């Protein structure tokens, strides 16, 4: 297969990368390429230049920063899934990472790339939303931090400027929270028809903090605020869980497609949410 021609550069540092982008504003960042290459093949994208981030050391590595885990943007899904610190302190991110695509995708795809691509059925956004993660982005204009919530605007749309680059994801530690990610994959694409990420913190038999995030269901992954509110402060029983699960799509414009109608997706999201919560009890 032949793709449209492009210029290629592999910067050696973050500064070099940012500078290269400033000089070639139509360029696209290339990380794992798991979404960009298929788009180029389908002629949905034809960037004149690609800046390959694989040589930028600053984008790598997982670090413990006290209350946070710092995940370099070029961290591959397989690394996120296996990393002991992530499994301990932000388990949900590992659980979602190990459900992404298949081994070949997890071996190449990156955390930063997945977030920047903002596929509405991707797994990581749900987990990172539930974990209240934020991203750190840079451009020639400097650095900024924004929450994953603020980052995701819609399908394949983020709050990033075209020249901006995700450098890292910062995840507040959720050590001791009960966490689970349940995914119903599309049988062909492997993307989530519904994916539900849950992190619950209980104290004295009552829910102190509940985070429920859903992917695959709406134009972007979202936090199920009404469902969370039902759980907050409660001693959880079957009835409460069912009530919360019933509200999981509240206020959302639920998507329908050839494989799953909106009505079915809503049902699936509710059932999956309820079962995920039950599984954590």
């Amino acid at each position: 297969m032949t793709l449209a021609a492009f210029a290629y550069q592999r910067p050696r540092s973050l500064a070099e990368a940012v500078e290269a982008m400033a000089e070639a504003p139509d360029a696209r960042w290339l990380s794992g390429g798991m979404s960009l290459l298929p788009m180029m093949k389908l002629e949905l994208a034809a960037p004149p230049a690609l800046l390959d981030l694989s040589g930028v050391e600053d984008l790598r590595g997982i670090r413990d920063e006290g209350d946070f885990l710092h995940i370099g943007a070029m961290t591959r899904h397989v690394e996120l899934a296996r990393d002991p610190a992530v499994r301990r302190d932000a388990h949900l991110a590992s659980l979602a990472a190990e459900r992404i695509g298949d081994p070949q995708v997890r071996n190449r795809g990156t955390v930063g790339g997945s977030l920047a691509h903002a596929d509405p059925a991707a797994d990581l956004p749900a987990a990172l939303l539930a974990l209240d993660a934020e991203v750190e982005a840079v451009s020639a204009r400097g650095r900024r931090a924004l929450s994953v919530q603020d980052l995701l605007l819609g399908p394949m749309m983020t709050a990033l400027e075209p020249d901006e680059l995700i450098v890292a994801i910062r995840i507040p530690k959720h050590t001791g929270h009960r966490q689970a990610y349940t995914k119903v994959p599309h049988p062909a694409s492997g993307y989530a028809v519904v994916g539900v990420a849950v992190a619950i913190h209980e104290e004295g038999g009552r829910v102190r903090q509940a985070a429920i995030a859903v992917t695959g269901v709406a134009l972007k992954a979202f936090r199920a605020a009404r469902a969370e509110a039902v759980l907050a402060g409660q001693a959880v029983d079957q009835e409460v869980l069912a009530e919360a699960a019933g509200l999981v799509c509240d206020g959302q414009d639920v998507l329908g497609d050839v494989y799953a109608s909106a009505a079915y997706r809503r049902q699936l999201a509710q059932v999956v949410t309820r079962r995920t919560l039950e599984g954590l009890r």
Partner: protein
Amino acid sequence: MVATEERVAITLAVNGRDEQVSVEPRWLLSDVLRRECGLKGVHVGCEHGVCGACTVLLDGEPIRSCLMFAVQAVGHQLTTVEALGTADHLDPVQQAFWEAHGLQCGFCTPGMVLTARALLDRNPNPDEETIRETLSGNLCRCTGYQFIVDAVLLAAAKRAEDAEQGA
């Protein structure tokens, strides 16, 4: 930076050898391995990142060579099926695929064998569910997968046996 059809000289570390190739940045790794390196065991089945026939090992881990530009592979170790074994000296995984009838038309086989090999390198004793999950990025239309799963189980046993004898 402007889009270019000009070639760049790169060195790919393929099957333990350094291959000097001159490529356009847009050339896919799968095409370069097949066309420039003559490694026809890299099969191109869908080119949209699903079927897994083009699977090769990058630093020992399975990846789809149709979802990567050749220029991205610089600095990595690539392994294709050609390096696993020859008919006289098969890798235990290949031997197991043969004995357990893990192939029919053979088109998905190089990718399957490489994915299986990487799995066993990481997890020498996988259960059936793990094997099925791991092989789900490689499509096979002929076998119904069962003999492939059996082949991976057999390969695990063979490798354990080999390791014992080596020890």
